[in-house]
């Protein structure tokens, strides 16, 4: 009876001036598991919560290194992220080949932004159902960009997208002033804490469901997973328990034993 007549394709406005297909695509991003990103003066960090379809299956990849100087974290349709990441890899390689320089993050971000926007303006096409955080270091220093299915791109100091990411963003907003002068290790801890804040009560960060991506001025972008991040998880949440004051031997309250 009251079916929405304005959401059949991405080229039709509703009388209120909305394009429903684009809004639905943004919902797909909110269904994806949470990813956060932070930059300091020297480093850019991505942290992501991975999901597995069932206990026995492996976890879906959330962070994709694109070039040696940057990588992306995705929330939403992984298959759409695959298309975008392949495009980004190809564009990054083209920049290295023709000019012998790593592509600027602002440049690659606006290129996928343009691509995503065209999809919202052509009949028979659909918007990408994925949001991305693009983080790394280029000739102009460390950067973090957020990309949305509508084609909107924004540069930020810190950001989070995906399910329950509001909690992560609240943490980031609260600590916003600290990030600029953070060391590499402090930045990683902030990212993990922000990630943890967005989890529901019964969930925890483990070596299996967490992945990290780190890039820096003197450091190539690298993804860390599994046992490589065990140390960070341990130190980060030990401190947090005591409200920022690390107490020796507080193994009792550790959140890693499960």
């Amino acid at each position, binding site marked *: 009876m009251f079916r929405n007549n304005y959401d059949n394709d991405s080229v039709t406005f509703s009388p209120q001036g909305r394009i429903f297909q684009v809004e639905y695509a943004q919902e797909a991003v909110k269904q994806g598991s949470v990813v956060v990103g932070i930059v300091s003066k020297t480093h850019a960090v991505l942290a992501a919560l991975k999901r597995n379809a069932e206990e026995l299956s492996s976890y879906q990849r959330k962070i994709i290194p694109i070039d040696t100087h940057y990588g992306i974290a995705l929330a939403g349709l992984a298959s759409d992220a695959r298309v975008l990441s392949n495009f980004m890899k190809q564009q990054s390689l083209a920049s290295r080949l023709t*000019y*012998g320089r790593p592509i*600027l993050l602002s440049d690659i971000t606006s290129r996928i932004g343009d691509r995503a926007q065209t999809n919202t303006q052509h009949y028979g096409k659909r918007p990408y159902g994925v949001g991305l955080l693009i983080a790394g270091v280029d000739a*102009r220093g460390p950067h973090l960009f957020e990309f949305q299915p509508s084609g909107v791109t924004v540069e930020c100091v810190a950001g989070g997208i995906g399910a329950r990411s509001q909690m992560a963003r609240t943490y980031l907003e609260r600590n916003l002033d600290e990030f600029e002068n953070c060391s590499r290790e402090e930045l990683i801890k902030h990212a993990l804490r922000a990630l943890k804040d967005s989890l529901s009560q019964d969930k925890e960060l483990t070596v299996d469901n967490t992945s990290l991506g780190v890039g820096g001025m003197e450091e190539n972008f690298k993804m860390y997973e599994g046992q490589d991040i065990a140390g960070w998880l341990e130190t980060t949440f030990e401190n947090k328990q005591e409200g920022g004051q690390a107490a020796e031997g507080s193994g009792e309250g550790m959140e890693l034993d499960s």
Partner: protein
Amino acid sequence: MNHFPEAWGRPRDDIYGSYNASYLPQSRGGLQSHHQPTTHTQQPIVTGTSVLALKFSTGVVIAADNLASYGSLARFTDVHRLKPFNKRAVVGFGGDVSDMQYLDRLLNSLDVEENYTSPTGDAKSDDDRALVDAPLMSAKNLHTYLAKVMYKRRTDFNPLWNALLVCGLDEKDQPFLASADLLGTTFSAPSMATGFGAHLAQPLLRRVAPDEAATQELSKEKAVEAIKECMKVLFYRDARSMNEYSVAVIDQSGVELKEDEKLENQSWAFADRIKGYGTQTV
């Protein structure tokens, strides 16, 4: 009704008569036959001669004369063959002048594109400003790009008939000098010369800067002087050269380009010892 799809939507022959194709070329069913075959560059026409460049401790100096020859005729005497790209890169062109003009337009559009896609951003502090205001395209990036353009064109069997010297500063603000030619060949050295200069000036420049270590010790004044001396030697012995030239110095402070220099202190004393040319009888 015609049932052949290729006729649908076109004026019907039985009403309008058949299409008058007479003005079309023969390949399209017309009568015109005088269209030309596709041609590729086989030889340069209007040419510029040598370009010289030399690295010194903090930058690079490059020079080329202002002559464009039509064969052996000194046809144009006000052609500037050094093209500044931005505040840390200059390209010097030897060879075909029309191809130089094509490349110059290409570089202009590249510069516009570069400034459009990544304009200078908001700088939060003075440290940031240095980072943000720095031109992104270094001489090294420009050389890579130009070498690809040259190689692409030779692969199409339609080369751009030039020998290029690209000089300036690289990403780390160190002096940079490299060449690319019509074959897409690239080369780099502390001193470089194209064309006749490769035979006449290069040995003299190597005496000033035999290796990279020597350029570290070389002052700007010494380098400019060496280049000017070489321009003079080239004018003595290269019949396609002239005594007006352009010289550019690229260092941290930017590009300093002078386009109407004249050779000074010429000495033709050596000339009467040369025998065996013209109407002379030895």
